[in-house]
């Protein structure tokens, strides 16, 4: 244990906390921003890949395929380092939001599409037979049922996005991992600082996982009902 702590004292730990805390807050912020971009994008893409308009559908398919095919790290690098050379400089926070939002949109579009597909075909027929417009059918009948099915998987994916926010360390966003690494550089307590950062991740991810299984359970009960 002492070997792992590398001789770091309690006072050392407490002195890191303000920095780690501000990194943690930034990690949460970039996660929320990415989800705020990515989840609506996922919904739009889920609907877009099913539309009959060929051009729109092609664009949506491309966005999904690139978002799923390219590792989040590559998207991040491409947008932060690549776009400025194309004359579009972005802050690291905005780059991170776009990259993680894109990735989130691509993956969650599949989750949402599966949710929408789980709505029985008969309900779509009932929507048509009642004369409801396509928009109303989506809004009042298909989405409320389909999204409910997708919620557990979406929550699960949100946890992954929070973890993936640590990749922003590579584009100089001072989030949790960057802060821990910085402390390591200054004090040479690399391992203790990173381990403390790890505890912050655990503190969010463990309760969130419990929440997901609870919601999954509830959703299962709903399906049976």
């Amino acid at each position, binding site marked *: 244990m002492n070997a792992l702590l590398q001789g770091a004292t309690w006072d050392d730990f407490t002195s890191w906390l303000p920095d780690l805390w501000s990194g943690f807050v930034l990690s949460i912020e970039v996660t929320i921003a990415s989800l705020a971009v990515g989840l609506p994008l996922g919904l739009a893409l889920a609907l877009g890949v099913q539309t009959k308009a060929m051009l729109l559908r092609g664009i949506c398919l491309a966005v999904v395929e690139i978002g799923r095919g390219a590792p989040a790290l590559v998207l991040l690098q491409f947008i932060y380092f690549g776009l400025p050379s194309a004359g579009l400089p972005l802050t690291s926070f905005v780059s991170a939001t776009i990259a993680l939002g894109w990735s989130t949109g691509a993956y969650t579009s599949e989750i949402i599409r599966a949710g929408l597909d789980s709505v029985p075909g008969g309900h779509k027929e009932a929507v*048509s037979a*009642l004369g*409801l417009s396509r928009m109303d059918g989506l809004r*009042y009948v298909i989405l409320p049922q389909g999204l409910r099915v997708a919620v557990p998987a979406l929550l699960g994916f949100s946890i992954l996005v929070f973890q993936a926010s640590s990749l922003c360390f590579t584009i100089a966003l001072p989030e949790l991992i960057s802060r821990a690494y910085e402390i390591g550089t200054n004090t040479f307590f690399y391992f203790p600082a990173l381990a403390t950062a790890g505890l912050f991740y655990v503190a969010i991810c463990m309760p969130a996982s419990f929440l997901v299984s609870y919601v999954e359970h509830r959703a299962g009960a709903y399906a049976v*009902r």
Partner: protein
Amino acid sequence: MPQQLRVVGQHVGKEAPLALTNKPYVKLEQITKSYGAHTVLRDVNLSVHSGGVLAIIGPSGSGKSTLLRCINYIEPPNKGIVTVGDVTIEGETPVSRRDLRALRSKLGMVFQSFNLFPHLTVLRNITLAQERVLGRTSAEAELIAMQLLTRVGLADKAAQYPSRCSGGQQQRIAIARALALDPKVMLFDEPTSALDPELGLEVLSVMRELATSGMTMIVVTHEMSFAENVSDHVAIMADGCILEYGPSREVIRNPQSARARQFLRAVNER
């Protein structure tokens, strides 16, 4: 085929005078439908007068459901003309959204599997389309929904979710949902097939009451007593064609073709 005129109980709404002419309210001409190379309906012709009740019977896979779904264009036919009241849609030309709306506004549909929306209360199931399609206020829609629920004997279920209702209750709610939009014609696709016999009876009695009140109905069914006693005309389908058509008793008691006789014998032995 000569149409029999029923004189009693067919003065429905403002379009009632139609029944007194020889012009049918619903007319299907040369309806053809294929799925890929598989032709499901071949040149089907049928008509129903205002206030008339037509039962469609026939073996499984003969195209009964498909025919019904072609009438309200849930399944657009490949060819043929569908006329309902003053709306005429031809199968080969693209359908305008306006025509589709006009067609569907005249047709209510009830499915074998009810298709109530499980995330909405019974009341909301019935008010949703009234508000969104007909533009009624929620107060108006609720009033009408409650009247209809009372009519089908389920006023006490208004606040429940459909899953808390028996199959027979769900189907009666589905009927109320369709009626709430003031359809001129009700289409039923085997409304009792998913139900135990007793639960089927409560649905059939609602349908019988509806027929007596003068509603124009097209009913795909395996219930021979309904076909014989409630409907005024029967069509027997096989392999995508109308095998026989005529006044109920005549068709059921005295079928002309060997294929129809075989089918009716099989039904009676069940």
